[in-house]
């Protein structure tokens, strides 16, 4: 019995024949007042002790923004005008999600592995039961809108792989970034099975004035509100005074 158990454990342990060694061009992105997007280069190599096994090696690299709870609403015509009617809450969907791979996802990853590692875009979204029959249409709409605005991208030829060893890809980050920890994952697959993976975080933060204003508006909303007023009143008074001076 014990011998059988030991054998099972041995089988269950992954045989790490190939390993990922990776780096990022930057692991901290600062959102300044003049921030207009950025890009991240993800590169690395496959370390192996033994000759490469059978079947082509594939690489999938994903970059995932902080998960957000959102509500997807649908408009319907009510009394001649278009009004939001049905709504489906989505408990978690990334604010940004980019996938790059060496080949079409269906070829490099089996359905079960996709489910286990939550790689493809629909798998990265978690919706809770809403009671609506066509809830799937809402998550499809979520993906469509985010894809159209460039927040979700799938580039099935985005990863360059040389000699089954060196790989690299470049992610373009739009200007409308949400702050938070962005998760970078590198998955190596052979015959649709994930053989190794590597994960790092990229920290996206507002800095300087942006940071200060945002923090103040959340932590001291009353002071922030009063400060906005001071700004408005001063600007109004200064304008009036300046133009009176010019005219006289």
């Amino acid at each position, binding site marked *: 019995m014990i011998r059988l158990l030991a054998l099972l454990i041995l089988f269950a342990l992954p045989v790490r024949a190939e390993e990922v060694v990776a780096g990022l061009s930057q692991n901290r992105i600062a959102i300044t*007042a*003049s*921030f*207009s*997007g950025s890009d991240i280069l993800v590169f690395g190599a496959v370390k192996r002790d033994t000759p490469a096994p059978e079947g082509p090696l594939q690489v999938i690299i994903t970059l995932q923004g*902080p*998960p*957000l*709870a*959102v*509500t*997807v*609403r*649908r*408009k319907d015509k009510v009394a*001649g*005008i*278009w009004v*939001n009617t049905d*709504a489906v*809450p989505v*408990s*978690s*969907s990334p*604010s940004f999600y980019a996938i790059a791979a060496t080949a079409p996802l269906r070829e490099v990853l089996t359905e079960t592995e996709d489910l286990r590692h939550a790689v493809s875009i629909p798998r990265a979204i*978690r919706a809770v039961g809403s009671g609506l029959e066509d809830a799937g249409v*809402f998550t499809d*709409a*979520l993906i*469509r*809108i*985010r894809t159209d605005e460039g927040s979700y991208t799938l580039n099935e030829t985005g990863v360059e792989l040389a000699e089954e060893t060196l790989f690299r890809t470049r992610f373009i980050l739009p*200007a*409308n*970034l*949400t702050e938070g920890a962005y998760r970078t994952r590198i998955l190596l697959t052979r015959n649709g099975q994930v053989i190794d993976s590597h994960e790092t975080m990229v920290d996206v933060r*507002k800095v300087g*004035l*942006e*940071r200060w*204003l*945002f923090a103040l*508006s*959340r932590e001291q*909303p*009353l002071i*922030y*509100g*009063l400060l*906005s*007023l001071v*700004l*408005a*009143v001063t*600007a*109004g*008074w*200064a*304008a*009036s005074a300046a133009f009176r001076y010019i005219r006289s």
Partner: protein
Amino acid sequence: MQIYLPIAEVSVNALLLFGLGGIVGLLSGMFGVGGGFLITPLLFFIGVPPTVAVATGANQVVASSVSGVLAHIRKRTVDFRMGWVLLAGGLIGSALGIWVFNILSALGQIDLTVQLSYVLFLGFVGLLMFQESLRSILRSRQPARKITRRHQHLLVHRLPLKMKFRTSGLYISVIPPILVGMLVGVLAAIMGVGGGFIMVPAMIYLLGMPTKVVIGTSLFQIIFVTAFTTVMHAVTNQSVDMMLALLLILGGVVGAQFGTQIGAKLKAEQLRILLALLVLGVCGLLALDLLLRPGELYSISVEGRA
């Protein structure tokens, strides 16, 4: 030159915002309105989230009203007593409006409410102004006739709680001004406007105030109502974007001064008919948006971090 707005969390062109503020300032200088009814829809259009657009719009109106009211105080055309009475109603209305705004936000109907209020109020006021200014243009073509208006007894004279308003030369009940103030306060909170375009006709036609003190007095009370609205939005929704407000205000201040000069060269009826057409145009665009089938039936609203 792109600029990242810290609260709206979008990146927009700073010159575009400056220009938007400038155009609205130009119009507000020409016509003597706060311009909130233009700035808020324009912000929706460039992709600023509705809650941020409404709250920041209110902040921008504070700046333009302060600039305007100083000129009126120098000319002694502000009825302070009437202003305080309107303000009392305005603050109640504003608190009520913020409360309604938060409920509707949670229900996902805030965009609809804001749009519907715009269509209804802009349509109503635009038509009134258009008809009135058309009539006065037609009248001015005919040989001059002296219009004598006798002292009229309106509803405002029959209600209790009468009060003397010296600057306006009125002795009326305080109930109608408080109600007018409340209505404008609710609108200010929901639509992100000062409400001058409602207040001015209401003061002339409902309260019977003389035209020369109307704009100054309306600006005076709008400062406080929009200031209150700004702080309330900042506290309850955290949706005032100071960076956005600053750019709009800078543009607006410059535009307003040019607008005043252009306005001085045009005749009053021409000005009013142009403003009426502008108001009706904005109303028409917003109405089309409600009536036509939208390109995308679904929308996403972020509830927070998962």
